[in-house]
């Protein structure tokens, strides 16, 4: 079943550029049995056994720890969060913005406020935005998303550091239930044998760099796109590199503006996005080929700013054919739906960038064909990794957190062993059903907009314009992305 999903994902994406399937084990039974030999221990049974260990203290891992720690049905359970880095305390919010930001959907904001972290975030720094404009470089087509009458916020731009700091602060207040070990790197995982091997230890064993061995009934892998948990389990992963890197920077706008719009333009080399941070500053996420990305990093500040402005403003990629066709489509559509559609607005111009803030990182797509094993679950980027063009990466992870917490809570209320497969399978099914279509859509968008071949451009122009004219469809898209 899982392999059918893998193959389907592959088939969906047609050729795929360079994908690597890590390990291909034919019989599902063998996979499900667990791998490395378990150890026989006489006195290990007396050692403390944690109920849940979460490996990885990033945004998603910390959110998982808070979420479990605050659940009423999990009171009294022993929960541990392992983070290889240092504790991220933020007593005072730094004056400069950091480059890595995330778009937090209303669904994720609900989760974060449920665990008590949203309060800290709003006190520190976050920027709600009310509208999003996405348009093509090769044609006039555009689509705008906004809530009715611009009253409600669509989503929030928050720096990743602030999210982690807020969650860390919340974890401090949950120290009875949830312990956190910083600077603890995991060197080895030992998986339990199948249950009818009577003599071995039935728990997952986690060995740290300092020699400590911990046991747990459930291991949650939140250790990012290069997850060690996933690798050690040998879970087949569909992944490919996009041959693209993202350049991120903090931009200073030419003049202060209300700045509550998120802008994204699809260039043939990749999408460029400007996300509001404050009235005077925005965050840049420019996904482009590796070569161009390196060039961009090497430009001096002025040239870099020019490149950004030109990317957003210039129309050189448009051919006459496309322009004519575009206006024809628009004319035709406006006879059907005269009131829909919106005029194209231009993003604010950029005057400078924040000091030393230009960074690049490679982009890729990854999806674990299984999210779970006996006593193990993967959440966040460890299970799925997407292109940033839709701003969904963190939100998918928070969605995993919400789903898994709810299932574990119910399982605990039914007296179940937290590592049992039954509810873990439910988690996997529910999240794969949600994540796969989203990931396929994002990948499709990326491929669709990666070319300036006329037929494709015409197709996407028409598609975008049509979608822009259908408020019902746009609402559906927003609802799906907001979960």
């Amino acid at each position, binding site marked *: 079943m899982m392999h059918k999903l893998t193959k389907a994902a592959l088939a969906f994406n047609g050729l795929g550029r360079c994908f690597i399937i890590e390990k291909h084990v034919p019989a599902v039974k063998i996979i499900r049995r667990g791998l490395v030999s378990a150890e026989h221990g006489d006195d290990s*049974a*007396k050692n*403390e*056994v944690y*109920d849940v260990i979460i490996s990885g203290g990033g945004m998603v891992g910390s959110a998982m720890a808070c979420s479990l720690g605050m659940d*009423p*049905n*999990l*009171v*009294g*359970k022993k929960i541990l969060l392992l983070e290889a880095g240092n504790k991220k305390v933020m007593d005072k919010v730094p004056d400069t913005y950091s480059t890595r930001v995330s778009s937090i959907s209303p669904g994720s904001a609900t989760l974060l406020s449920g665990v008590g972290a949203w309060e800290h975030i709003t006190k520190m720094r976050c920027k709600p935005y009310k509208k999003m404009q996405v348009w093509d470089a090769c044609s006039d087509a555009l689509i705008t998303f906004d809530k009715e009458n611009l009253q409600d916020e669509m989503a929030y731009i928050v720096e990743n550091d602030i999210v982690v700091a807020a969650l860390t602060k919340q974890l401090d207040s949950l120290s009875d239930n949830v312990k956190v070990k910083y600077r603890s790197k995991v060197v080895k995982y030992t998986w339990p044998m199948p*249950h*009818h091997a*009577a003599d071995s*230890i*039935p*728990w997952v064993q986690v060995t740290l760099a300092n020699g400590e061995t911990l046991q747990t*009934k459930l291991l949650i892998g939140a250790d990012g796109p290069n997850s060690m948990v996933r690798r050690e389990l040998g879970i087949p992963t569909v992944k490919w590199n996009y041959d693209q890197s993202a350049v991120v920077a903090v931009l200073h706008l030419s003049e202060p503006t209300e700045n509550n719009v998120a802008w994204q333009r699809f260039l043939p080399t990749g999408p460029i996005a400007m996300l509001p941070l404050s009235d005077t500053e925005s965050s840049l996420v420019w996904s482009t080929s590796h070569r161009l990305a390196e060039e961009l990093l090497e430009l001096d500040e002025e040239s870099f700013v020019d490149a950004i402005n030109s990317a957003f403003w210039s129309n050189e990629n448009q051919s006459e054919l496309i322009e004519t066709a575009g206006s024809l489509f628009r004319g035709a559509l406006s006879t059907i739906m005269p009131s829909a559609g919106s005029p194209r607005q231009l993003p604010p111009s950029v005057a400078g960038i924040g000091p030393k803030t230009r960074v690049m990182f490679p982009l890729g797509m990854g999806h674990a064909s299984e999210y779970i094993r006996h006593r193990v679950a993967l959440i966040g980027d460890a299970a799925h990794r997407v292109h940033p063009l839709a701003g969904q990466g963190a939100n998918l992870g928070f969605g995993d957190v919400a789903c898994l917490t709810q299932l574990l809570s119910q399982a*605990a*209320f*039914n*007296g*179940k*062993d937290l590592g*049992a*497969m039954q509810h873990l399978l439910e988690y996997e099914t529910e999240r794969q059903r949600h994540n796969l279509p989203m990931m396929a859509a994002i990948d499709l968008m990326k491929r669709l907009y990666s070319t300036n071949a006329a037929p494709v451009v015409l197709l996407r122009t028409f598609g975008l314009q049509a979608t822009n004219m259908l408020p019902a469809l746009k609402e559906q898209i927003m609802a799906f992305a907001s979960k």
Partner: protein
Amino acid sequence: MYSNKFNCLMLGLYSRNRSAVCGLVQSAPGRSGFSWTAVCKQRSLKLQRSACLERQHHPMPCQISTRSASQTTVDPDEVRRFQSLASKWWDEQGDFAALHAMNDLRVPFIRDNLLNVHRARHPGKPLAGLRILDVGCGGGLLTEPLGRLGANVLGIDPVEDSIYTAQLHASYDPDLSDRVSYQACTLEELSSEEKEEQGADQFDAVVASEVVEHLADLETFAFCCNQALKPGGSLFITTINKTNLSYALGIVVAEQLLRIVPSGTHDWEKFISPVELERLLESNGFSVQSVQGMLYNPVSGAWSWTNSTAINYALHAVKHRDDPQPDRAEERSPRPEDHTAATHS
């Protein structure tokens, strides 16, 4: 197969040491003595075809210790079969898959009915402070979830190997090993121990899940349950109805065709209908609170609640608060229909 084992042990104990077992004779001579004799006679006739009957004809001296009982009453073939099965309790996809799946129904059933009476004071451990007895616990499939919910659970089962498996499984979990304990004995033995220690009426709840259809003497069972419970305590039973449908689906389909349970597990004659069970319990000092049908879907491997009690059902009864002892005047003159009901075998 379990049914035979239970029969042998129960009957073996009765025929050998009637006076010593459970102290029941002392406490309620008229009723118990009568029904036991009749039961034993009925049982011995009934079990002509059972292999272990041969041993019953030679009453052997034995103490009421479980070790000797199992060594003398049980057919070595049975023991071997149990030993091989004992390790399979915890294989969730194995022979006991249906029982594992049944936890989805019976744990909430027990938990919610207990919470109706005892308000939950401890979030995370809703059953904290309650003492529960799990009769016929087997490998501890139901005992462990109840322990995880915070209750102090004692699981008893006459089959030693099952108890050993249960103890081993629970020993790995430090959370459970404080609250969950096991004993290889029968309900009657436990009652007698409790009586001796003067600690009768110990448990807040008694659970007998998928056990009643394997028992020889339901009267005694109901009586012992009554003895073991505090006034107002709850009795939870899940068992199989005695209908044509339960024969067709519960035995023919489940055992022979689909092999959901190992063949020979159930004997249709031992099934009891909810009405009869209710009557039995009410005449033993219980008041039946609810009866609910359960349905197993072999395709999905999941149980669900259903309106029809035609096959499986769950029953919740509460021991009367003001009258802990069964009504003796009523029992002294046996009524034929009660007699037949109790010895329905």
